[in-house]
């Protein structure tokens, strides 16, 4: 089961604003095996979010290659990328990004609607996802009626819709207290251990990173350290 699910080669991202240009990612190569649990760390502005957005097919690199399950993502059209985001990747944001005035349940159903899952099956599947994150009783609450930790759990349930292999989370605990952070990390750990999902999270906190098996550290758009916590695998 040691399949290479993500492979990036000589990836660079350049932001150009008039005369000002920022190299957010500088010639990065990296490879992730299916079932890995990875934390990405590094100072603010080091390019972590930039990388996550590219991995999540939300953004495109200026240079280099990104292979997802062996497929060159760079050659895909915008609509094909939408389909990849819908089926293969679950993205969790620091700011939750739930759709306002839309219930937790409907938020979780959304990726299934775009994935053309039948209406009759959707609700049941969404409810069982909410159950997985322990929010069955909040299914019909609106986002503004939920706590930060609850919102993030809804967001995780939503990321799990359509059963993607890869879960990407950009600072999922960034807005949460330590107790909620722990709950969230336990969910990610369970998904990785029990369901075999490949999970990549960005964090600033060492104790959050320690839930994972591998910590990649960034500085100024480059990888400066890639440590394996669980010994040889």
């Amino acid at each position: 089961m040691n399949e290479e699910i993500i492979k990036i080669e000589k990836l660079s991202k350049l932001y150009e604003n008039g005369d000002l240009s920022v190299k957010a990612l500088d010639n990065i190569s990296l490879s992730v095996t299916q079932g890995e649990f990875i934390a990405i760390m590094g100072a603010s502005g080091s390019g972590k979010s930039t990388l996550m957005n590219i991995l999540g097919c939300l953004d495109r690199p200026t240079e280099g290659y990104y292979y997802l399950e062996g497929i060159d993502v760079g050659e895909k059209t915008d609509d094909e990328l939408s389909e990849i985001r819908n089926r293969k990747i679950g993205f969790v944001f620091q700011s939750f990004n739930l759709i306002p005035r839309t219930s937790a349940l409907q938020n979780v159903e959304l990726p299934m609607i775009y994935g053309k899952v039948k209406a009759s099956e959707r609700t049941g599947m969404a409810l069982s996802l909410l159950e997985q994150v322990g929010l069955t009783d909040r299914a019909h609450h609106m986002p503004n009626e939920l706590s930060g930790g609850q919102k993030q759990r809804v967001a995780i349930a939503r990321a799990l819709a359509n059963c993607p292999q890869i879960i990407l989370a950009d600072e999922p605990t960034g807005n949460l207290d330590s107790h909620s952070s722990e709950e969230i990390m336990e969910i990610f750990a369970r998904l990785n251990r029990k369901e075999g999902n490949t999970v990549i999270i960005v964090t600033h906190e060492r104790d959050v990173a320690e839930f994972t098996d591998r910590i990649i550290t960034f500085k100024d758009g480059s990888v400066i350290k890639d440590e394996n916590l669980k010994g040889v695998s």
Partner: protein
Amino acid sequence: MLLTENIKLALSSIKMNKMRSFLTMLGIIIGISSVIAITSIGASAEAVVSKEFQSFGMNNMYVYLNWEAVRDQPIQYADLILPEDIEALQARFPDDILYVAPSISASSETKVGRVRGKLGMTGVAADYNKFYHMEMIHGRMINQSDLDGKRDRIVIDEAASGYFFNKSDSVGETFTVTLNGESRDLTVVGVFRKEASLFDQLNTGESYTTYIPYSLLQTVDDSTSYLELYINGDKDQTQLGGEIVRYLARIKDKVPEFYRFESAEVQMDMINSVLGTLSIAIGAIAAISLVVGGIGIMNIMLVSVTERTREIGIRKSLGARTKDILTQFLIESMILAAIGGMIGTLLGIGIAAIGMGIAGVALIIDPMMILLAVGFSAVVGMFFGLYPARKAARLDPIEALRYE
């Protein structure tokens, strides 16, 4: 596919901004309601007018001396239409002219006992009642011997009978009237009943409609400048009218345009063409208000797209394709416009119903119109929603997610 989802979404977003949605729809509401109101009133009016013409006599025609053609020379007795001319016309068009008589009328004050009133007296030939939807309820109509003998006879309607004589059957009673300056006693020979036409209603003058032999009204000589005809309805009236006046001109040795004609059908065609022009004008007003309404929708949809940029980013990050976002916003603008169209339709029908209610005329509503109005508003919504929807659909997911 996503249709039901999109409709639900659109409805909830319209509900969320009730006031704003209503104000946005206002242009469409005003446009559609005015069109529906005016066309419904127009259709009802047209129906009334054509029914009126039908009862008044679609086959009525008038032939008259064209005074403009004779302006330069003094008018001669021989130029006028004489009894032998009428006979010649009847001989020439035996199947087409069913009734013909000089069109002459007069009115006079009268008094029966202590009851005062005014009589409008129309000169008629025999058999007039056969062509003008009159029902004789007592006695008889003016006949040929009344005409030939210039007898002092009169036929009155039931209302006049009731008013002057306090009974329905007043055959044998007499009126004293003034005709051409001399006093005459007219004997009632018949009482008729006639459904009041719109013209009769408008003519609410205190005078009662009565009929007398036309020969009674011809005092100086027996010429006339104005003929009333009832013609065969199977013929094309414009053509027949032309033939009649040309024939008349020929036997009188005159230029063809010396006599003219006018017919109910020709008049109705004219009214219909006026109504047609009116509906084109209404169409133009509707088009303008719908364009204005459409621009309102475009404006608010642009605002909505900007407000919901982040939401669009989230949807895209979850797998929404360009097409999904496009349809979401297109359906929202279409529904917005269609609801405006529906409200406009109801409002328009309401206005027309009130208007027609005041006029006392039955309202005619064409269901096709309603479908057309709502459908057309939706098309307007789609057209003006296209630009904002495309703008939304083309948003870059990461840019949209970063939008604050």
